[in-house]
């Protein structure tokens, strides 16, 4: 969930070539969207005369999101989307895929997983997320979501996470756990860390002081403390090593 917003960054030459995405380009890209690009539940409207320029309004399952086309164009320019019709359309589709998750959708399909709770990626927390095609999109409660609803969504998401199929692979003293057929959802296995430890014990690796190495969106590694620290020692990606019992104490993001 922390990758770049509009896909992989372009190469050096593309970055040197500064082109701007303008409001008419975005409007044209929105007009080019086919039903295949959009969820059937999603409604798109462009409203004129808001005072600040044309505004895009998304409506899905009771959640409304507004954005000025000028702002969207700036975001696309900053992300260095190629300012060709195809490039801008792809950028708009990518932006739409990351639109806020409606509370209803989160309640119906949300899954609990571990993610960073701060922009500096130092503190882990549980988060409710939904999958949209190949993408894992975090849920942030809407302004109208009540506290009981938030609790309900979270507990349902924990239940779904516990039902996710996991595959354990052993690499000597390290157990590697992935969610079967669901890229990006690997940290859901830590909803039941004791099941992971039990399976490792069944495969012949009984840990006395099990630590997990958590990288949001990537497979979870589980090993004895020193081995886990060695694994994560020079990782260039943000990851956290913690005793497996500490996982249960992590808060919600």
């Amino acid at each position, binding site marked *: 969930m922390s990758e770049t917003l509009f896909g992989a960054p372009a190469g050096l030459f593309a970055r040197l070539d500064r082109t701007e995405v303008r409001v008419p380009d975005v409007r044209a890209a929105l007009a080019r969207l086919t039903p295949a690009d959009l969820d059937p539940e999603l409604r798109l409207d462009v409203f004129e005369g808001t005072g600040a320029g044309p505004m895009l309004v998304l409506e899905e399952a009771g959640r409304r999101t507004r954005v000025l086309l000028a702002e969207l164009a700036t975001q696309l320019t900053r992300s260095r989307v190629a300012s060709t019709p195809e490039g801008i359309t792809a950028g708009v589709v990518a932006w739409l895929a990351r639109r806020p998750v409606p509370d209803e959708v989160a309640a119906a399909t949300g899954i609990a997983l571990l993610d960073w709770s701060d922009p500096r990626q130092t503190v882990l927390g549980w988060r409710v997320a939904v999958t949209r095609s190949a993408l894992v999109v975090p849920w942030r409660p809407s302004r109208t979501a009540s506290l009981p609803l938030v609790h309900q969504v979270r507990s349902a998401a924990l239940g779904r996470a516990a039902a996710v199929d996991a595959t354990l*692979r052993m*690499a*000597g*003293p*390290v157990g*590697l756990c992935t969610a079967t057929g669901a890229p990006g959802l690997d940290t859901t296995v830590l909803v039941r860390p004791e099941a992971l430890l039990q399976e490792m014990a069944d495969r012949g690796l009984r840990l006395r002081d099990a630590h997990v*190495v958590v*990288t949001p969106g*990537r*497979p979870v*590694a589980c090993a004895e403390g020193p*081995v886990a620290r*060695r*694994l994560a*020692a*020079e*990782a*260039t*990606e943000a*990851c956290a090593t913690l005793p497996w019992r500490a996982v249960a104490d992590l808060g919600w993001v």
Partner: protein
Amino acid sequence: MTVPPAAEPDQVVLVPHWLTAVDREEVERAVTAALGVGPVHPVAAIHLGDVLTELHVAAAREVVWPAPVARVRLATGWGADVVPVRLSALELASVLSLPGLAPVARAALTGGRST
């Protein structure tokens, strides 16, 4: 076999050695054989055990964080089975001191991609 004194654990620097699957298999074979046949100095045995751990940990890193190594392979043109195996000076010394280590793996650890 002479064994250098153990260093403080937090001062140990792990240096990557870029080994192919064949090199890694050979290191694993030589270390396992040495530990199985013995006699090995107890401290050297610990270092050799850590080398075996590192070989597995290197494989695990590939699963969890494949992107940085993939970029190195792309830039250097190395094969898909080349993986950085991070060893401390003591671990490297204990592997190189094994008489049974094949010259190919010895060369990979002391020169080639590692320099």
